[in-house]
C-alpha cells in the first residue's frame, strides 16, 4: 500500500542503547525517524524531540461540549418542549440536572480523547508491516524512512552498527 514508505531500520536489544541511538539519530539531522518499543521508555520523547501530546485540548473541548449538551438537553426537555410539574419543583431545576451534566461531560471527554488517540496514531490500521516480531516483546528499533532529509543507506547502516545495533535491514514501515 502506498501509505507505507521504504527505509532502513536498526534493531537493538537494550533500552539504554536505543535511547542513545535515538538521540544520535536525531543529532544526525533526521526528523521523520520512528523509535519502536514494546513499552513507553522514560526519556524517549526528549531523545526523539517529540512535543507534548495535543490530545488534552481535545479532552477539554469535548468536556465543555458534553457539559453544554447536558445542560441544553435537561433544560429543553424539562422546561421548554414538554414541561411537566413534578412535585411543585421549578421546570428548570438546575441542581437536579447537575448529575446528568456531569456524566455527559465525562462521557464526551473520555470518548473524544480515545477518538483523538486513534486519529493521532493512525489506528485502526489493517495488517501494517512488521519490521521484527520481537519489537512488541523485547527488542527495540529505529526506522529512518527514505524521504527523510539526508537519507543515505550506507551512512545510516554504518551509524546504526556503530551505535551497537544487532541487525540492520532495509524494510517498509
Amino acid at each position: 500500500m502506498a501509505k507505507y514508505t521504504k527505509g532502513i531500520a536498526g534493531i537493538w536489544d537494550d533500552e539504554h542503547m536505543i535511547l542513545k541511538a535515538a538521540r544520535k539519530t536525531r543529532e544526525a539531522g533526521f526528523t521523520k525517524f520512528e523509535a519502536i518499543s514494546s513499552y513507553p521508555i522514560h526519556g524517549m520523547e526528549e531523545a526523539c524531540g517529540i512535543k507534548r501530546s495535543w490530545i488534552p485540548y481535545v479532552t477539554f473541548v469535548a468536556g465543555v461540549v458534553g457539559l453544554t449538551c447536558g445542560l441544553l438537553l435537561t433544560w429543553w426537555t424539562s422546561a421548554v418542549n414538554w414541561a411537566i410539574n413534578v412535585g411543585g419543583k421549578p421546570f428548570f431545576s438546575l441542581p437536579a440536572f447537575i448529575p446528568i451534566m456531569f456524566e455527559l461531560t465525562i462521557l464526551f471527554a473520555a470518548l473524544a480523547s480515545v477518538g483523538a488517540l486513534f486519529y493521532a496514531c493512525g489506528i485502526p490500521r489493517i495488517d501494517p508491516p512488521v519490521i521484527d516480531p520481537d519489537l512488541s516483546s523485547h527488542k527495540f528499533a529505529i526506522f529512518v524512512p527514505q524521504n527523510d532529509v539526508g537519507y543515505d543507506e550506507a551512512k545510516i547502516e554504518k551509524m546504526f552498527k556503530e551505535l551497537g545495533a544487532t541487525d540492520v535491514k532495509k524494510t517498509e514501515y
Partner: protein
Amino acid sequence: MMMKRSPLVLGNKTLKDVSDDICAPVERFPSKGWVGLFLGAKTLLLFYIAILASVVGIGIGLLGVNSPVFWGTMIVTFVFWIGIGHAGTLISAVLFLFRQKWRTSVARTAEAMTVFAVMTAGLFPLLHTGRPWLDYWLFPYPNQRGPLWVNFRSPLLWDVFAVSTYATVSMVFWYIGLVPDFATIKDRAKNKLRRTLYGALSLGWRGTARNWSHYEMVYLILAGLSTPLVLSVHTIVSFDFAVSNLPGWHTTIFPPYFVAGAIFSGFAMVVTLMTLVRIGFKEFQNYVTLDHMEVMNKIIMTTGMLVGYAYASEFFIAWYSGNQYERFVFVNRAFGPYGWSYWMMVTCNVLIPQLFWFKKMRRSIPVMFVVSIFVNIGMWFERFVITVTSLHRDFLPSSWGMYAWSWFDTGVLVGSFGMFLTLFLLYLRLFPAVSIAEVKPVLHVGYDEKGGH
C-alpha cells in the same frame, strides 16, 4: 538509613520472560482445573438464564417483592455488583494518579473484574422494571407520546446515566490498556487464526515513540476522568435511596458511606479472585506477589473500619435526631425480625477484617481468601439490611410486612455469579491477565544495578 523498596516483580525477569510468562495462559492448552471451573461456571450461567427467563416470561411476582418491600434481591444484588466494580477503577485509575507502582500488575485483572461486575449489575435494574422490553423508555429519545421526556429530577434516571457512562468509560479504559498487549500476542502467534484475531484486536498498534507519547497522555486523561466518575457512580446509587423520605434511607451520610463500602467489597473480590488466579496460573505469582496482596488487605481493613464508623454514626444520628421513626428503624434494624442480617453484616465487615492487624494474617493466602469471602457475604448483607429492613417497617404499623424470599431470589443471586465467573474465566484464557507493557517499565524497581536486591 534508607528504606529499601521490595521489588514489584520477583525472579529477576528479562523483558522476554515477561512476554513469555504473561502470554503463556493465552497460548497453551487450558488446564483441567480451568476447564472444570469453566464448565461449573457455565452451568451456573445456564441456570441463571433459565431463572431470568422465567422472571421475565412469567413475571416479577416470582421474586419476593411485594407490599411493603418493593425493592428486593434485584436491587440489593445490583448495588452489590456495582460496588464490586469500583475497586477495579480505584486500582486502575486512582492509584495510577497517585503513582502507586504496585498497582501495575493487579490493574488489568481488577479492571476486567470491574467490566464484568458492571455488566452483571446492569441487568438487574433493567429486569427489575418488570417489563424489560420497554427499557428503552429509560433514555431520552424523541417520541410520539408528546414527546414525553424522562424525568431528569429523579435519582433513578441519574443512575441510568451514571451506570451507562461508567460501563462505557471503564470498558474503553480497559480496552485501550489491552491494545499494545494484543499486538504482542499477535506478533508471537504461531497460527493464522490467532494472528488474525489478535491482529484485529490490536488495531494495528506498532508502538512508535510518537504513538506511546499520545498513548500515555490518553491513559492519564482516562485515569483522571475515571476517578471523579467512579465516585459519582456510587454517590448516585446512594441517591436512589437517600433522596427518598424513608427513615433509614434519608441520610446525608450515604454517598461517602456507599463509596467506602464499594471500595471495601471490591477489594475483597479482587483478593478472592487473585488468590485463585495465583493458584491456577503459577507464573503470575512473580507478578502478583504477597506484597501486593498484603497492601490490598490493608486497604480492606481500613475501608472495613470506615464502614464500621458509618454504621455507628448512623445509629448515633438516629438517636440524636430525636425523630421517633428514625430511632425506631435503627432499633428495629439491630433487634427486629431482620436483626440476624444486621449482626451478620457487622461480624463480616467490621469484626473479621480486624485479623489483618497481624502481619502473619495479612500475608497468609488461606486466611485472606476466607476473610475476603466473609467480606463479600457481609457486603451483600449490608445492601440487604439497608434496602429491606428500612422498607419492611416504616411509619404505619398497619403497612408492616416481611420480604417473601422465594427460591427465585436465591436463583437470581447465585446465578449472577455464574454470569460473572464465566466472563472472568474466559478473560483469563483469552486476554493477557497482567499488563505486559505496563509491567516492563517497573521491572527494575527494588533491584540494584547488578540485578540483585
